[in-house]
């Protein structure tokens, strides 16, 4: 299946992926309306490492999904390889947050938790997840590849 891969050598640390993620999941049609005056809480997060290295971290859709295996409600399930969240079932116990080796499931405002669902649940029009589609330097790509192995 296609996954999000990140190339830290190409990442320029612009954080655009975070803004596009927040927009894609905002339910708004216009980016300015979605983000004006908003402190964004995106499902992808750019990290800064030593030496000016930056890269984006989001759900890896692991083949061994510790979050879904440990989900106490059954709200996290794997559908066609994508780890999906049923917000209606989730009670916000944060077990998944304690189990994700990437820190890719995070608390959310207005709902219990949030995670990347490859833009499948948010009505985004592109076939490519918004972060990858709008990365200006192809540091985030959406392509076929191996399942990451966590830690």
């Amino acid at each position, binding site marked *: 299946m296609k996954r999000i891969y990140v190339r830290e050598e190409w990442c320029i640390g612009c954080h655009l992926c975070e803004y596009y993620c927040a927009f894609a999941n905002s339910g708004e049609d216009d980016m300015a309306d979605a983000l004006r005056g908003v402190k964004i809480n995106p499902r992808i997060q750019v990290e800064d490492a030593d030496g000016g290295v930056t890269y984006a971290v989001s759900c890896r859709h692991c083949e061994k999904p510790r979050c879904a295996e440990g989900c106490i409600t059954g709200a996290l399930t794997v559908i066609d390889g994508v780890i999906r969240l049923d917000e209606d079932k989730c009670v916000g116990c944060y*077990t998944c947050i304690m189990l994700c*080796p990437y*820190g890719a499931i995070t608390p959310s405002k207005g709902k219990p938790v949030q995670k990347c669902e490859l833009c499948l649940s948010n009505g985004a029009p592109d076939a490519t997840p918004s972060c990858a589609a709008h990365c200006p330097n192809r540091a985030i790509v959406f392509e076929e590849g191996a399942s*990451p192995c966590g830690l």
Partner: protein
Amino acid sequence: MRIVIIGNSTAAVGAVEGIRAAERSNAFDAEKQAKAGGGSSAEITIIAGEREHTYSRPLISYLLEGKTDEERMKYRPNDFYTINNVKTMLGRTVASVDPKAKTVTLEDGSTVPYDKLLLAAGSRPFIPPIAGLGAASDGAEYHTFQSLADAKKLEAALTEQSRVLIIGAGLIGLKCAEGIGRHLKEDALNGDSAEISLLGNKALSENRAASITIAEFAPRVLPSILDEDSAAIVQSHLEKQGLVFHLGNAVSSVDGHSAVLADGTRVDYDILVVASGVKPNIELLTEIGAKSGRAIITDPCGRSSLPDIFAAGDCAESLDVTDGESRVLAILPNAYLQGRAAGKAMAGLDEPFTEAMPVNSIGFFGLHIGTAGAAKGESSVIKTESGYRRFFFAEKRLAGFIIVGDVNRAGIYTALVRSKLPIDAIDFDLVAKKPQLAAFAPKERRKMLNGETV
């Protein structure tokens, strides 16, 4: 092949999914399995005392709190048994297992044959020997808080004016208290009124105030997962919500309306909840000679010491990877993964579950707590605006941690505990302040994020 599963909760669901995953797996030898008896798809029968569709047991406090409902509590969708071709015998109790005849006998005397048997019967509340405490007929009535039926019974008994006494400040007792809070009269649960209700019979009758009082034998709240300092933070938070604690103070006797504590304090109550821990349901196997400690001893594929009999979930022990000890790790993810490994093994595919460890994630009135691994040995504490963090180290590895407050991205810590990565290999000071992948060496990080082939 006939697989019988006793139990219908997390480990049983894990087993069903494990069996069917094994049958779909490339590594599965269908031909060999077919020769072993009865086709390549196992006949699965679930026998359980509870009549409900499989539901998430930890959600009963959320149900009491009004944050979920019975439909959303279902651990798997309504068509779970149909799509997995599982025969259910719900509301039925297994009385005994005959390992020679390979049958289980139900309470009505009927028998069910098996080729492989899984005990996934969980646990039951432990009722401490307290003077006056007993069944409704011969002693003071009490509630327990472990099943959907328990939650419904408790909810039906609660009124806005209820004075509730909970015995036990563990995970179950405190989640129960949180769930009860919603039912009591608004404003009743502020510290003052709750105190008044403790003045004994003076404050009783018409003017009594609703209250939640918790008596705990151990000197702190959540004694199984928290240290003194973090327990004090949690206790203070809970007291602000109006909960009243008597710690280091066991209940000596009850009479149906009041309890006397070890230090002589009298607590009057309308509703008594016993939340003093659980006892694994292991008798079906121990009485036929299965090796057991506190629970059934199994290998990492769930095999008990008896041929073709497996155990998983809260009735089975696990090897805790953090210290190599065998113990009951009564947490939901562990039950699922034990069950899944047992299911696969019963279907003929050995994929041992070797990563069992304690991981707790729990919140009370908006304050979150995350703990994992072993809480012993050398440690360091970080107190920040967003809460309390204590890290425990053993042999230059992160052995465990306790977080109260901001648990965002704490799974990175859990992964460090599980993987036993040497602390020297990462920038631990960085990750201790804020969990992040930047603390890992670039090569390791690329492997984690992109898989080995990139």
